[in-house]
């Protein structure tokens, strides 16, 4: 690992200035992904701006919703009474991610900003447009078992690894950001981006912009929810495919639904069209199948991830079944 400078400002504005003015500077929060990437030479910031002590870790009621400070720990959010009462889907997603130790380090903002786990991104001797633009996509013709079936480009077929973000995109969250140009709000669905021709950019954040909080509006999805994650072992693994499902039921009739998939695209994959299929219909496996069919429109597989064309809809159906039964 290269040597770097270290700064620990005590005010958000100082942190923002420090990163905004220096193209080689980088925020560090929990460090659970950045440190890993620095050890392997995938990321080589010359300066780290430690934001862990900025006052951004509150979890509170705000404007008919919940506000999660960007530095709230994943474990703190998952164990928070308010969150457990109002957003159980988020709790399930958080607890499906990583390990208890990592959740004690990882923050809300950091979780959103974790990089892909594509092995070609991680190995500096292999081609990867995300790590080294212009070198090609190693996964396109390579071992692409873990890769995208939606929204990819010929430059990049990586997927976003976050579980938490899959729940947040389903829950209509909004990302609060402060930057050199002031504050702005980004709908969660617009926060992460598709790779297009610039896969090196994971999100729509500008240089120096700091996530300060995530707002989740109150919604009637406090009971019939499920985050169903399929992985190669029972815990502590990234998703092959995951599905977030939140239902408002009136008897057995679906009044409203929120759906998203993880492990299928460069961003958490919201399924608005499939949600519409569900509204007003009975909560039965047949209905869920219809929604899953709509959800899968436009999906395309590569050599080693064809299974996802079947696993993704099946996982969605299972999440809907579990949510209904909850």
């Amino acid at each position, binding site marked *: *690992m*290269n*040597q770097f400078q270290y700064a620990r400002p005590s005010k958000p504005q100082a942190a923002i200035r420090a990163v905004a003015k220096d193209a080689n500077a980088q925020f560090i929060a929990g460090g659970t992904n950045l440190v890993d990437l620095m*050890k392997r*030479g995938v990321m080589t910031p010359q300066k780290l701006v430690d934001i862990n002590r900025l006052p951004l870790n509150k979890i509170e009621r705000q404007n008919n919703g919940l506000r999660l400070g960007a530095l709230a720990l994943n474990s703190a959010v998952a164990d928070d009474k308010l969150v457990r009462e109002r957003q159980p889907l988020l709790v399930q997603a958080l607890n499906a991610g990583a390990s208890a130790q990592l959740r004690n380090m990882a923050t809300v903002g950091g979780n959103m900003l974790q990089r892909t*786990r594509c*092995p*070609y991104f*991680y*190995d500096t*001797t*292999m081609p990867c447009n995300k790590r080294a633009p212009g070198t090609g996509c*190693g996964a396109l*013709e*390579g*071992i692409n*078992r873990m890769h995208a079936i939606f929204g990819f480009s010929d430059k990049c077929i990586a997927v976003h690894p976050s579980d938490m973000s899959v729940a947040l995109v389903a829950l209509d969250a909004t990302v609060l950001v402060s930057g050199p140009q002031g504050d702005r709000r980004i709908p969660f669905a617009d926060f992460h981006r598709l790779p297009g021709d610039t896969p090196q950019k994971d999100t729509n954040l500008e240089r120096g912009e700091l996530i300060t909080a995530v707002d989740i509006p109150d919604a009637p999805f406090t009971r019939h929810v499920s985050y*169903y994650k*399929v992985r*190669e*072992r*029972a*815990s*502590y*693994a*990234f998703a*092959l495919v995951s599905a977030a499902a939140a239902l408002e039921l009136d008897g057995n009739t679906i009044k409203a639904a929120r759906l998203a998939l993880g492990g299928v695209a460069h961003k958490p994959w919201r399924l608005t069209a499939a949600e519409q299929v569900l509204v007003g219909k009975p909560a039965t496996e047949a209905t869920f199948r219809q929604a899953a069919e709509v959800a899968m429109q436009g999906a395309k597989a590569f050599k080693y991830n064809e*299974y996802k064309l*079947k*696993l993704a809809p*099946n*996982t969605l*159906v*299972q999440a809907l*079944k579990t949510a209904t039964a909850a």
Partner: protein
Amino acid sequence: MKPLQKQIGTGMNRVDGRLKVTGAATYAAEYELPGLVYAVLVGSTIAKGRLASLDTKAAERAPGVLAVVSHLNAPKAPGAKPAGKDPSQPQTVGNPLAVFTDDKIRFNDQPIAVVVADTLERARFAAGLVKAQYAQEAHQTNLEANRPQAFLPTQAKKNPKSPVADYQRGQVDAYKTGALKLEAEYVIPTEVHHPMELQAITAHWEAPDRLTLYDKTQGTMATRRDFAKQWGLPEENVKVVATFVGGAFGNALHSWPHESAAIIAAKVVNRPVKLMLTREQMFTMVGYRPHTWQKIGMSATADGKITAITHEATGQTSTYEEFTESTLGQTRMMYQAPNLTTRYRLVALDIGSPIWMRGPGEATGAFALESAMDEMAHLLNLDPLEFRLRNYTDQDPERNRPWSTKFLKECYQAGADRIGWSKRQLKPGMLRDGDWLVGYGMGVGTFGAHRGASKANAQLLPNGTVLLQSAVTDIGPGTGTAMTQIAADTLGLDPAKIRFEWGNSSFASAPTQGGSAIVNSVGPAVQEACLALKAKLRELAAAGNGAFAAARPEDVAFADGHLTLNGNPAARATYADLVKQAGGTAVAVDSKPGPDGQKYSMYSFSVHFAEVRVHPLTGEVRVSKLVSCADAGTIINEKTAGNQMKGGAVGGIGMALMEHAMIDDRFGRYVTKDLADYHVPVHADAPAVEVFFVNQPDPHVNALGTKGIGEIATIGVAPAIANAVFNATGKRVRELPITPDKLI
């Protein structure tokens, strides 16, 4: 006085438990030596070719760097030869790959330089500054694509009786003419040992001709031999210390390039050098269970008697060593089959050499054999346990010799009872638990009850305690504890008064920890050393006490640190007093296997029963219950032995459900590089494993009656799970691991 409790057979706590739970146990990278510096390896980024140039200038100039060593400037170790120089003499396993002897690249991530610096951070940084240019050659890293080039191992060509030579009894490939037959191919991928401790070594030249290694090795004697030879030193000038070894499962069975590199680096900087591999390097340069293709043909009569089996296997090796393992051994001896053919072949690829991994060979072979047994039972519409019973062998059909002992039927019964085998339905897919399909399966394992020559030293100290020393390592099975128990019972002493020291090549020579052979081999040496001590005590007592002098040896009793005399309550001497008078007493024994190995076939046996749940929509598999039963002879310590069985079962879960190292053949480079890509079982994958031991001594292996546990704990687990998955779903997965994609 209350008689001392017998230790053998109890669940005595580990003698090193306290050290392990307090963090005080010291592993290879944890020795504090004055002037210690850090070494980091630089690996090649191609799989085959030559180093055209190596630019080390930037690395040499980096802060804290003491040396950058490569083939350009490495001191020549007199005994180090480039691997594979003479193709007519392929090296067999056991030869470390010499490093920095030439510019040839034989596998991806092969060490091409080592950087030494005063801190780990600086060594790592500088290692990234070494720039190599290559003259690249086309590489081959795909087993399937290269199977047409498979060859008979050289040792089999030279010796038709070699265990890896072609074997037949009855007619060749007789299954082909059978009325009821099956033919199926089975594949296991490359699996990697991945002990939790990264391979590490601290190398210290205490003088120009005296080398001390704190090393992760399963055999201190073997490692000493290797590096004494490499450096042209008398063996006594090399000391290897491996008191604690953080797991190995086979990958420290022989020496590796990184050890050579650390020793060279220490020579160059003339300071102790510590080198710990990264998790990426654990894939590339310290061995793995080789990717293996197998095919089984089997025929049977309608009433469930096997008439013929043909079992073929093609495994992967490197271009510079011929690695072989006993993939087909179990097939030759497990079931009655009048016609039996086995063929073993190798494919040499541009990948580092494999090395035996827990249940070596047999675990691979058992996946095919025991899956095929299940397939045949299904074909016959027979219960798979009943099918195995109908083909049970009461003597070894391979060598036509009696078994030394075999209690496999007892294991079958115990396991079937404990798993609830009666719930199993003959037809797959019949049982459900909520959304989940439920199934039951079994798999049998066996491994030779090997015993090697072993020495042991024992001393009675003036305070009445006993010190035993052996070069043997304890990589986790609890060797130190078992030896303490054996000594306690033999000497009639409280185990607290016995100190067994291990893991140092300066101690009495012992075999390398592996092949489930350590209690079989070192156990009798310890026992004999203690018997010799008793003889000494008897002599001392006789010399100093009239009653003992006149006594017949068989009338002298040893208990709780005293000698007494049958029929003479007044005669009593304490060990401590006798030893004090003599000023200490020491014995050294050399224990060798007896002749029974020529008369009997000696094996440990196991059977594993699995209950699995399979999600029909997502293809997830959960092992909800595992029962492992073993005929492993005498159980010295039920707690540590039980732990071994449970751990082997967990290893089998990994093999069955998740372990799979993958190479991108375009680059000849692993894409599974760490423990997030290469999954091993976590807590949530492991059910409470239930263990049953027959615990009947085998008098032919040694006087203790032990047969060995470590391998049979894993062998047969993966097929038990695969068979249970079939029973749950009707889907037969013949290529491991059974990941969700294969079941939806």
